[in-house]
């Protein structure tokens, strides 16, 4: 602001000291300054004389109606906390940190999930295994082995064709089992189609079946 403008502003506000008033009067000798002062005064008068826009008579009541209830309501506060929309401010560092957290979480999850389910499957998954023996003329064929404590009267094979082809299906957990067929309750017979054998200590060979972890769901001896 020029000196004249400063004094003009002071004059309009009625804040000039006697000295400043004198200085201002001296500047008014210039016609341009006189005109500026006169029109500024008119402008100020015009501004000061305007009527105020008055709000409606219901203004205050309408404001009060729009106010929320401030009384403390814990549940309401929790609800607001959960559902209130928020503006998230991002920067590269935040994005990198969040990405790191997500990667670590994913890797940890993968590592944990790689162990637990398989371990539980090992305990819960069983394999259906079909044992069969051709014994034409036999009346009864049973199966005895590690899986049933070598009891001879527990697992009976059925002659499904009526032509001496006896068979039974067992559900076995993963493991290696030795077994023998017992024909007519007296004759112990080794499975001729077993995948492996081992000595039974009585001069015969026990058949062996190896039940793998879940790759083979069904088998037939």
């Amino acid at each position: 602001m020029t000196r004249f403008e400063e004094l003009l502003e002071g004059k309009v506000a009625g804040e000039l000291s006697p000295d400043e008033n004198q200085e201002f009067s001296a500047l008014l000798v210039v016609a341009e300054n006189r005109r500026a002062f006169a029109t500024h005064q008119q402008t100020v008068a015009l501004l000061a004389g305007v009527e105020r826009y008055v709000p409606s008579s219901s203004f205050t009541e309408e404001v009060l109606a729009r106010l929320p209830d401030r009384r403390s309501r814990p549940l309401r506060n929790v609800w607001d906390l959960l559902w209130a929309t928020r503006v998230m401010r991002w920067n590269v560092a935040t994005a990198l940190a969040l990405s790191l957290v997500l990667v670590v979480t994913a890797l940890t999850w993968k590592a944990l999930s790689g162990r637990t389910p398989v371990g539980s499957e090992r305990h819960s998954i069983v394999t259906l295994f079909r044992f069969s023996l051709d014994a034409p003329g036999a009346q009864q064929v049973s199966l005895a082995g590690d899986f049933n404590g070598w009891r001879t009267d527990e697992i009976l094979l059925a002659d499904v064709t009526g032509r001496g082809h006896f068979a039974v299906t067992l559900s076995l957990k993963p493991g290696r089992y030795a077994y023998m067929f017992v024909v007519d309750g007296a004759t112990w017979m080794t499975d001729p189609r077993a995948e492996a054998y081992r000595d039974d200590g009585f001069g015969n060979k026990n058949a062996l079946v190896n039940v793998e972890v879940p790759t083979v769901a069904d088998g037939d001896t």
Partner: protein
Amino acid sequence: MVVEALRCNSMASRASKEQGSTGCQVLIDARRESDPVDERAIIARCLAGERRAYSVLVERYKVLVHDLVSRMLGDTSDAEDIAQDAFVKAYLSLRDFRGESRFSTWVCRIALNRCKDVLRKRRRAPWTRLRHEEGPDVAEVPDDQETVVDSLERCEREARLQRALARLPVKYREAVVLRHIEGMDFHEIGRVLAIAAGAAKVRAFRGREMLRRILERDGALR
């Protein structure tokens, strides 16, 4: 032009009817009642959940805020809603009010920020202004003390002034309105606009200088 003048007249007559005095007097009375200590007590009651206590503050400053918003936007159609909005926002932020300035300063700042948002939107979509130019109060009767001609002349003057104000850049318009219409001192204007008192003084002067030139060109000044 005539429509604007009559609409302006309706505002003046409504002011007189509802307040029993002119708006200027209302403002002066409101300012005289303004007491920061009293305000802090009212605000404490509001924060304690007593919503009715807030009506004291709204009553005290509604003319100031409503007029400020009307002058800034150049019309009254949205002013009521925006002024109410400013009071609601101020209420919602009462906990943040530290009492370093008057409540009026604070609510004026909120109202001005809201006005700037509206003006920014209008600049992007100027056709929305059309809606604001519908005047519902054309048939209002002028004051008893004033002849119809006087009333039309006065309102035409005000309409010219309002149009001239609307042509000022916002930062000068707000300084001129706060200084010369709302009657604030430069310290208070500085607090409302978040600038130094000296800067407020310069803005008010520059704004008035621009306004003076516009009015001169329009033939409103002799």
